[in-house]
């Protein structure tokens, strides 16, 4: 999926992740670096290589989103394989707090995350305008007004597009779940 989406893969991605990690650690200690700064810095450092490899990643934003989505997928996959491994090691996952919360806990959440990715794969090319809203809301954590400003459309439109997208995606996830 990553390749189709134009994700940086292999060495570059690993590099990106390592950098993000190191910066995150620093951020965590000093409480000065904002998440946006973080990705900005990541972008600045890695731009030469990004430009060389990925035309479409020329903006900070694109890098940001791509990285974030990648982190999410990674995380979700880890959740699932961890659960499996705990069982493999003869340990009851129920004994671990993060598998205990409602809605089936983290495991279900992780599975849904992966399905969301799958849903987005259909969603992005089908609804490019909606995709922009989703990107901003999801992966940049923009508010409705911020989003409206960024996209140059009315807040009401943003609101409607967002809700419609959510509905569609949730429906798609459910559909995939029943598969």
């Amino acid at each position: 999926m990553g390749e189709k989406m134009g994700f940086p893969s292999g060495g570059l991605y690993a590099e990106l992740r390592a950098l993000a990690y190191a910066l995150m650690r620093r951020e965590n200690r000093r409480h000065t670096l904002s998440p946006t700064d973080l990705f900005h810095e990541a972008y600045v450092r890695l731009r030469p290589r990004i430009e060389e490899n990925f035309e479409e990643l020329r903006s900070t934003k694109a890098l940001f989103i791509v990285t974030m989505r990648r982190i999410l997928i990674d995380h979700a996959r880890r959740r699932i394989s961890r659960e499996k491994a705990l069982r493999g090691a003869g340990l009851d996952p129920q004994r671990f707090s993060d598998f205990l919360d409602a809605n089936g806990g983290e495991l279900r959440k992780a599975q849904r995350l992966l399905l969301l990715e799958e849903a987005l794969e259909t969603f992005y090319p089908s609804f490019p305008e909606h995709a922009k809203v989703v990107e901003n809301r999801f992966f940049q954590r923009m508010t409705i007004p911020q989003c409206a400003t960024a996209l140059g459309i009315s807040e009401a439109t943003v609101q409607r597009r967002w809700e419609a997208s959510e509905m569609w995606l949730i429906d798609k996830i459910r559909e995939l779940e029943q598969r």
Partner: protein
Amino acid sequence: MPQSTPQRSVLVILETLLGLDSLEEREAWIRENLSAAPEIEQEIRKLLSSGSAAGALDDLVPTMEQLGEYLRDLRGEEIGPYVLLEKLGSGGMGDVYLAHQNTPIKRLVAIKVLHGDLDEQVEIKRFQREQQVLARLQHPNIAHIYDAGKVDSGYSYIAMEYVNGLQFHEYCRRYNLSIRERLELFIQCCWAIEHAHQKGIIHRDIKPSNVLVTQVNQVASIKVIDFGIAKAQWSDTYSEESIRTLGERVLGGEILTEGGRSPGTPPFMSPEQGSLDPHMVDTRSDVYSLGALLYTLLTDCEPYDWDTREGRSVDEFIKTVKTKPLELPSKRSVVWASQLRGDLDAIVSKAMEIEPHSRYQSVSELIEDVNCYQHELPIRAVMQSPWRRTYKFVRRNRIALGAGFLVISSLVIGLLFSIFHWLRARDSERVATQSRVGAYILAGSLGLRQGSVQIVKDSLVKSSKDSWVPTAVGSDRVQRLDWRLLNSLQPNQSELLGETDGKIYFGLSIPERRELVVADNRSNIVFMDAETPGMRRLEIVAGQKDINGLALSPDHRTVASAGDDGSVKFWDVETGQLQRTLRVSSEHVFQCKWSANGQFFCTAGNEPGLFVWSVPNYELVHKLPSSEIDLECMDIGPQGQLVYGAADGIVRIGSLDGLDQQVQSLVLTMSRVTHVNRCSVVLFSHSGDMLGVGLDNGFLVLLRRIAGVYKPVERIKFRSGVTSLAFSSDEKRLAIGDTLGNLHLLQLQEHWPMTSTINFRRFYLEAHPSVFLRAGQEYASLWDYVTKATQGATRESVSGELDRVELELNDYSLPKLQYNENYVREWLDENGEFHPEWVEFPTFVQFKEKGIELHFSERFSEWKEAGKLGEQFSLRSWGPHRKRISGVFWGADETSIKTLSEDRTVRSLELRYSGAGLVQQASVDNFIVFNGDRVMVNGAGGGALVLNLSDTDSRPVSVENFDREIAAVIYPTPGHPDVVYGWRTPREAESRRSQKFFRLNTRDMVAEPLTSMPVIDSLWQLLGVVSRERLVLFYRSGESSEDSSLVCWNAQTEEVEWKIGVSGEKCFVRPVSDCGRFIAFVIENTLHWVDVDTGKMIRIELELDNRELACAFSPDSKYIVTSLNINLLRCYRVSDGGLEWSLQVAGPEALDIDWSQDGQTLVAVGLDGVLRTYDTTLRQMTSEFALFNSDRGIEKVKLSPKEDWLFVKSRNGSLYRIPCKSLGDH
């Protein structure tokens, strides 16, 4: 994906609908617009019916904080065969996770993950180094490393043994351990660190959370973890600059904040770790951290408070540490103040000294002191009052000293005893706290002789029941020893525990049951109570004819007996029930044992070969080949090493991990003339680092594991066959039982065995030499007194200054010292002057290798000073004249020679092997330096090479590819500086006519056989080099020992000057007279000397058996004096062999003799280590001086030309220099 219009419209419609406020409006809109497209209507209705979706995805998509969390949280990540499960902690280089491994083995591991590879060069290098570092560590108390590598996703990892245990300090508190128990565990921890140090690794982050305690078989066991910031001491794989880069770029100031500061945890971090210079950190930094750990264990608080909340920087903290005196543990402890006061305060303070050089210089020194404390011996840490020391000494040696007390004035006795009682009352407290010492300290100890089991309990510490002493009293074989802890030997304190019907061949102890299990040759197995004489819990009639061996399973639930009927039977320890019978061979099974991990069971028997069986099904998995000769003994080491010794005297070492791999074969036959020696016992030490081999001919060979290979480091000859061995738990002592019923105790030195042998019959003399040596001068008077008291001597106390220059010529060179008298050659320059600073000093290498430059140079400067004095002297007869050489030389390892030149630079010369199959196992300790700048290395595996020291690119050249060692090399003659003569040991099977003597031109490295030598088909011995031109050789020319010859060969002319036939086989002494005209030797009972000029020989028949004797020519070569083992010195005229005088010596026979320049005084050293001077005119003893206490005695003694110094070399490899004025004869 193609864009589908219906799809697109669905969302647009939906959006429109959402723009409508009420449900009614939406319904109306749908009906109005979608009635024509039912599919879309259905779709829209479905979407709408799923209810409001607002916020449903928010739950899935994380916030920024969560995202950061996700980045850090690697749980679930698959790295190689591992899946990370839980985070265990964060270390310097990355996070540590609990992980599950699925293939090839299912197990839990601890895995350290280095996240990311931003600066690949630096990071990965450092990580790889860590892997290499950890891979070098193999110790039961260090978490094992399983695997390391880097996976495609970019993670580097190290998979380690998962230790399920409590942190050290928490464990101590939870189980409310006593001081003694805490110290026991602490010592385990120290051994682990010491092991790492020996491998050249500094831990650098020792703290309670890095030391875990697990329960192994109900016994607490230490596991040191997180060698994460461990540093290989000589590693230069990352420069200071790269550290800085690393710190700045990757770690963002978290760990390596300021430049090259070494990571560590402040309250446990040594002050020098806080400095900016990473080179300041050495093994003594770990000593500091261990001290801080001990502090915490004893006081329940950290040595200095470090409050991170105040944001104090490490610098400030270090400043506090450096300026504020350490609050003594006794002041901090609430519960143990009184016990901590004194020794423990001192030990902790010494370990935590600010200056590294004030601390214990090694972990083993710290261990030694803690051990001393545990055993109530004096510690080195503080200058105690003399009375306190005396008290301890008396406590340990009450009986031995009994007689001695009688000769002391009553006043002194009164004083001593009143103090004694006072201290004793104090000490009863300590005993009370020690009574809880667990079963793991208590170990049954037994000495077994035929039919009886004897136990000797040490009465001094009997109340704490932590120390039993094995011995065998009587004249029978000591058949088996099982011994964990030995404090002292008290021959008079034995107790008969019980007897069996038949002869006992084997026994073992079950510590937690406090039982001994013995088996006799009538096939009975008896479980005896080790504490109550006569008490037997179980008696089993095994029905196996004889029982040759017993083994205890690792879980201590099963005892296996190896029988003469070819079977092994397994018995339940609890009930005595037969569990299983294993048929091994048709004849006898000699021994059996489980591997430490319980996975294998091995049997040795007289069906040639060693059988390895799998547990629990006992299927034969492997048959290790051996010679056609019966296997006599075997042992399994803690890491699965397998050793087996056969009746052919060959010991083979393999591994249970690699059964198919080739085994290491060691031929331990000691002498070229002795016969085949059977191996009677092999035993690994508890850590597996040492291996003891006992031979039937009385030789004990100690091997040490060096780079994974066991190498002999010490050979000791006992009077009778060695039957049993036992290492003490701290591996500092070795008990040896012999066929005469003697028990010997060996003191093993810190790094290398050993300096002294203790025979328990003379134990009072030898009580605690290490204490004596350490205490030095202050102790000397007491020492003297003890010696006198026990010997009943009446002489005056001599308490002269012992101006001692100690030179530890131990490790590799020790065997060489014993067998090759040429060891001092390199110490002399062309004028024959002695240069102590040239002396090979392998111990230096130890330090050097560990990177402790300071040690090296400190010691060296000490020698420089000694050298200044030494320049005035010559040790004339210590070797032929040497060319001046430019430094100290030593063989650092198997492949290099190191040199220390006068400007103190150290160079390493690598020995590069050419493709010609040159030196297979070059033992570089065996080399000579000649012609100023040439080094010739004799390869033990055959071959030789010559290096040019001044040439940076020395190209070694093959001399000849011998398959045996080159026995000796003769130095170049004045006329031909490039020519070296030598010969090699002949091979047994070699043609009798083969030529073994060669001449080597080191210019072109062409070696030619020398035909001018008579064809000699048997043993060569170099009697001596009488001058630069002439050498005298001894050889046997025929089958019969009667046909031996002496030949004088002239290297100048390459011709034989004369040849004399002599009878006899063994040849011992070979002094050369000062004028180089006479050479003396002893063949069997006859003393010979030869006038080399004329070939005239004089023989003196001596009334003694062939013992190694001393003799010396007088400076004017008119007289020769010899020492006889009937305590006589006899002086003969050299010219005609007439007896000039004879003199009774005090004490045992002299081992070495020398004359003063004026011929007036004779100096002789005795077997008892006492140096005596005799006046040759008055013919009486003029003085005596107890030099060194060791029954290995003194080997060499030489007077300086001005006779103001005496050089003495003890047989343990120490060199002393004694001012003559203290001898009282000048």
